[in-house]
């Protein structure tokens, strides 16, 4: 004990040390992002005025509490493809607008902002908006996923695939609701597309397959197990 004290434990308590580290690390991401923006602009060959406009844009975004890290890839992509500054700025503004609308959508469904702390969820919602999915449908998906937030991304990818495949909105919602309430792992949700296609090959109408999945999903641990109960 004396040896530890002599080594400084008592003079520099662990609690104080941890707090100092946390305080040091807390602003680090913002510094890193600022540095990343500077680095990207330094490589860009843009004029000083263009660089200033982009820097101002990111400063404004940061004040609006829109996650800067979700927009950085867009800037870096534009710079690496040698796209002109006005077009990059235009793309950034459009992306920022999708993120703002995403925040409004999420807060519109649930007053608690906990969902917004999940940057991936926020970004995925912006992607859905950019992909032309109507806000009412995204709101519906957020509603379905409130009790199973980790299922949101796989569920939304599945939803887009179901719509592309031709399933009506209501059937797609019912199917996703059944999956979210089941013990099936979210990363397996895309396997449902194969169930629909295989059911179709057996000439079972997709709406009937959806009914069967709704009935059996709650008792199925995996997609493979579910498959054995619906044909």
């Amino acid at each position: 004990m004396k040896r530890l004290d002599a080594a400084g434990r008592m003079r520099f308590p662990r609690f104080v040390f941890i707090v100092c580290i946390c305080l040091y690390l807390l602003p680090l991401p913002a510094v890193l992002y600022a540095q990343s923006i500077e680095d990207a602009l330094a490589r860009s060959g843009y004029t000083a005025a263009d660089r200033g406009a982009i820097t101002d844009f990111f400063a404004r975004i940061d004040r609006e509490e829109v996650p800067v890290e979700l927009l950085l890839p867009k800037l870096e992509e534009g710079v690496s493809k040698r796209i002109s500054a006005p077009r990059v700025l235009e793309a950034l503004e459009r992306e920022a607008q999708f993120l703002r609308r995403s925040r409004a959508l999420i807060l519109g469904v649930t007053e608690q902002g906990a969902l917004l702390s999940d940057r991936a969820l926020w970004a995925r919602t912006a992607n859905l908006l950019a992909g032309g999915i109507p806000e009412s449908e995204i709101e519906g998906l957020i509603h379905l996923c409130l009790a199973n937030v980790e299922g949101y991304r796989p569920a939304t990818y599945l939803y887009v695939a179901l719509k592309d495949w031709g399933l009506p909105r209501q059937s797609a919602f019912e199917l996703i609701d059944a999956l979210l309430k089941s013990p099936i792992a979210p990363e397996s949700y895309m396997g449902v597309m194969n169930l629909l296609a295989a059911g179709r090959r057996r000439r079972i109408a997709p709406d009937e397959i959806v009914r069967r999945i709704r009935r059996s999903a709650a008792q199925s641990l995996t997609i493979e197990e579910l498959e054995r109960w619906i044909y």
Partner: protein
Amino acid sequence: MDLLRRTSLAIVVGGALMLAALFPAAAYTPSLLLGLYGQRIVSEDQGGQSALRMSGLLSWRSALADNVSVALYAGSSLDRTLTSNGMFLDSHSLSLDSLLRGEAGSIFLEGGLSGSLQGTLEGQSPYIRPDWKIGGERRYNNRVASVAYSGYCLRQSQGTGDSLFQGLQLGLASYPSVRLRYGFEILGAWEHWIEENSNDLIAALKASTGGLAGYFLDWSMAAQAGIRQCELSGESNLFFELEGDAAWSPHRQVSLEAGVFTRAEIYYLTAQPVSVPGFLSAGIDFRGDWTPNDRIFLVTELSASRSFPDEPDENMWYFLGRLGVEFSL
């Protein structure tokens, strides 16, 4: 006569009660499919042959409880050859399976009966073939271990191919994700040839893989190698099989399937003075359909295969083309 009437009544009442028990509120809506096709088969030994086909398929599954289900599948097809002495050919199948699942696994029991009264368009003589299977699976996270006993008895009106087959199968399948699955199976079997009163022993290993590519394409591949040890001289062989399938449905209105296969047999105890006696066959098949409304399906099927036995005069091409319409009721 009275006894016959009572027996008939008992069967009818018993059957009705059994159906009522199997048809609780949890039963799925039965699927009934009717099909009408025109088809042409061309083979080197029999030349071209055109035919009309009518088919029907009934499938139905019912959950008796949360962890018990039964399913019934019944299918029939009737072919009429379009020749001057046109004849009817047919094939039928009926199967019933039940599934019982627990927390860590499941038990399944399957039984079926297939046959033909007039023979089939593919050249099979009239036959009857009951089959059965019982097995179980146990799940360990994303791995499934399985064991199954299966068998069939084939009786034909002509030929010397009647046999009784019984096999034991051990399997291990892994599902690391929906994008990739793979499995490994060991099969040990015994086949008794009834007319010859001889026996074969069969052992085989099979490896398979498959998965989803994107959201709309499912693929699978399998390779099998085995040995058949026959009591009859010259029949023992090593066999190897490769097969692959892909199914693509980019939209609910369209489905496309394609498959390839090849099989090789090497007779290692032949009595014939042939340097490398063997047999090789390979083929491809394609199936596509389109539906405007999930009720009516326009269907096309194409397949081609060729066998390459050691005797050159037995080399044979086989083509099948089929166009039809199916009605889902």
